[in-house]
């Protein structure tokens, strides 16, 4: 009888131990929706980062995820194609929230901020996106109606920082030409102009119709305005064509580039030509190269490991760094905000922590602006970093910390 009790006790302890261990290794899942273009001409911007996002989240979860109280949580990603259109954005946000039941929307960058933000805020789903013409005063963003929006990537402010970073590294420039499609024309550019005027940066704007392939007329106008650098608003096609066509027109010493990270240097080289694409500049999130911004070495390693995993899977070196500044940065903010707020499902409590909170992400340690900027928290202090193409590689060029717009 005694023996039986002993066996029973051992069995019970074993079951309990395994049960507890099981409970410890099965964390709760926080679903994060990502609404980006997955098809159409803007598709590469959405599809290229996905393998890196997935690898990074896997590593983040493997490293223990995050804890709220005694409970461990892991992130799970759900993607939806926003087709880079307002109606596509609204449909993607609705699908993510009401069908996939995501807890947050993050990693969103495309032009349909208003539609995604409207759907997310109505459902009280915290949404981490970017600034642009819509976000600044006079744009469609209304902080009272959209209290769950976080401008985790201040794209407009990053663009300003890019220009500062460029003129700092090329101080003998004559004039910087700023090019963008007239779709991007809006109130945000007034803020940009004001900042550049204040900094006494010489610049000239040119706007072209969307879908333009022939930039000869615009390059001619830049030349007549005395420009020797052309920096664009994130249109890869325009960047490749301006680099190529300015070279063909004989302006071989001009520097060219575009906001948005370099997708793959070989794509630019194949389209623009080896010589024409040399020195082509893009935004850079190779955080291991940062000189002015300090990033936690553990976070750098995780990013490197994720890129290594993707490189192995794809059988070629994965060099795109843009992903580092988007979703991982957003997820770090969310995880730390939930830990500090002590809740995963109270959006008001989480937003309270995000406003003015200090976070340590893949872009360094910084304090969110609270409601001082446009009525929504914005990340400031993260780097506006630039790279350029050298040979067939992308290398660090310069860095200028994000500052507040007037």
């Amino acid at each position, binding site marked *: 009888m005694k023996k039986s009790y002993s066996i029973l006790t051992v069995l019970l302890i074993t079951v309990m131990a395994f049960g507890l261990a099981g409970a410890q290794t099965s964390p709760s899942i926080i679903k994060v929706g990502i609404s980006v273009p997955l098809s159409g*001409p803007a598709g*590469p911007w959405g599809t290229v980062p996905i393998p890196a996002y997935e690898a990074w989240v896997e590593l983040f979860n493997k490293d223990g995820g995050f804890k709220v109280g005694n409970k461990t949580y892991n992130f799970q990603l759900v993607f939806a194609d926003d087709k880079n259109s307002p109606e596509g954005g609204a449909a993607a946000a609705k699908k993510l929230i009401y069908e996939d039941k995501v807890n947050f929307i993050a990693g969103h960058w495309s032009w349909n901020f208003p539609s995604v933000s409207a759907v997310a805020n109505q459902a009280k789903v915290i949404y981490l996106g970017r600034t642009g013409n819509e976000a600044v005063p006079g744009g469609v963003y209304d902080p009272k109606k959209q209290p769950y929006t976080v401008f985790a990537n201040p794209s407009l402010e990053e663009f300003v920082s890019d220009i500062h970073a460029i003129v700092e590294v090329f101080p003998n420039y004559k004039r910087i030409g700023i090019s963008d499609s007239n779709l991007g024309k809006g109130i945000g550019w007034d803020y940009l102009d004001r900042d550049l005027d204040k900094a006494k940066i010489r610049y000239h704007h040119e706007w072209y119709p969307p879908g333009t392939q022939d930039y000869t007329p615009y390059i001619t106008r830049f030349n007549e305005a005395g420009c020797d650098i052309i920096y664009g608003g994130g249109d890869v096609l325009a960047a490749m064509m301006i680099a190529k066509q300015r070279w063909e027109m004989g302006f071989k010493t001009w520097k060219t580039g575009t906001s948005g990270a370099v997708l*793959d240097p070989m794509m630019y080289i*194949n389209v623009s030509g080896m010589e024409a694409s040399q020195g082509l500049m893009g935004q850079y999130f190779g955080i291991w190269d940062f000189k002015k911004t300090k990033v936690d070495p553990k976070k750098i390693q995780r990013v490197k490991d994720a890129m290594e995993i993707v490189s192995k899977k794809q059988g070629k070196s994965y060099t795109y760094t843009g992903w580092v500044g988007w979703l991982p940065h957003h997820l770090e903010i969310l995880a730390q905000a939930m830990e500090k707020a002590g809740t995963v499902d109270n959006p008001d409590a989480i937003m309270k922590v995000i406003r003015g909170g200090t976070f340590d992400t893949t872009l360094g340690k910084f304090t969110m602006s609270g409601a001082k900027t446009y009525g929504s928290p914005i990340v400031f202090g993260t780097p506006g970093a630039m790279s350029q193409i050298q040979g067939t590689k992308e290398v660090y060029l310069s860095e200028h910390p994000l500052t507040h717009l007037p």
Partner: protein
Amino acid sequence: MPPAGIWIDGLIQSCIYMTMAFGMVLVFSILGILNWAHGQFYMLGALIVYYTITAAGIPFPLSILITGIIIAGLGILVKKIIIDHIEGDLYVGVATISLIFFFEGGASVLFGIEDKGLSIVLPGVLTLGPISLSYQKLAVIIFTLMVMTAMYFVLNRTKVGLAIKATAQQPDAASLYGISVERLSLIVMGIGCALAAMAGGIMAPVYPISPFMGGIPMIMSLLAIVIGGIGSLTGAIIGGIILGFLNSVIAYYLSYLSEVVLFLLVIFILLVRPQGLFGASLK
């Protein structure tokens, strides 16, 4: 007066619009339909040239010829399998619009959506004093001259060409004279699509290659046709030339407003002279 570079640019644009417009008008003159997927044949042409060069190592001029033959065959298939089985111009138009999405989607799945480039083909720039012209663009001018000369001879010196012209003017009479309009329409569809594909092929080193590259050339060739006259082959050429130069010169002066002005001009032509500058009557 715009600088020389703008006029050269206008010439390049003209070349491509006139080749595209010529193919479209050719199809319209015999089949009586506007092939809305004409731009997608342009796109497929560029993709085939890309792969024949990068994967098979075929020389550029030969790859353009191969592209023309392949896409001519595809055009004939589209005519046989789809167009011939649909009644009514409107429905045929809708079918060719559907083909835009079919070809774009298919090309996206097969070849991916990332931009591809052929900068390795004809690299370098020809510099004559203040004028710079890439060899790639010089090739566009030479190609257009060759194609237009070839088309002139085909249409004026060959039996098929004379039959095309006769059928375009009087289809019933041509039929009475023993011309097989059905057979001729297949040939014309093949030539029209081949022209679009070869135009895409010659432009492949000039612009990025992607499944979505056909939209703008299609719209511009349509504008060229409206300017020149919808049923007129001469109109397509002149319309293409006018549009190419206008596009460059207006963009130089008015920047992003150039498209607005171009479309206003087309509306004005439609109001004042609906048959276009060369006055070919509508079918």
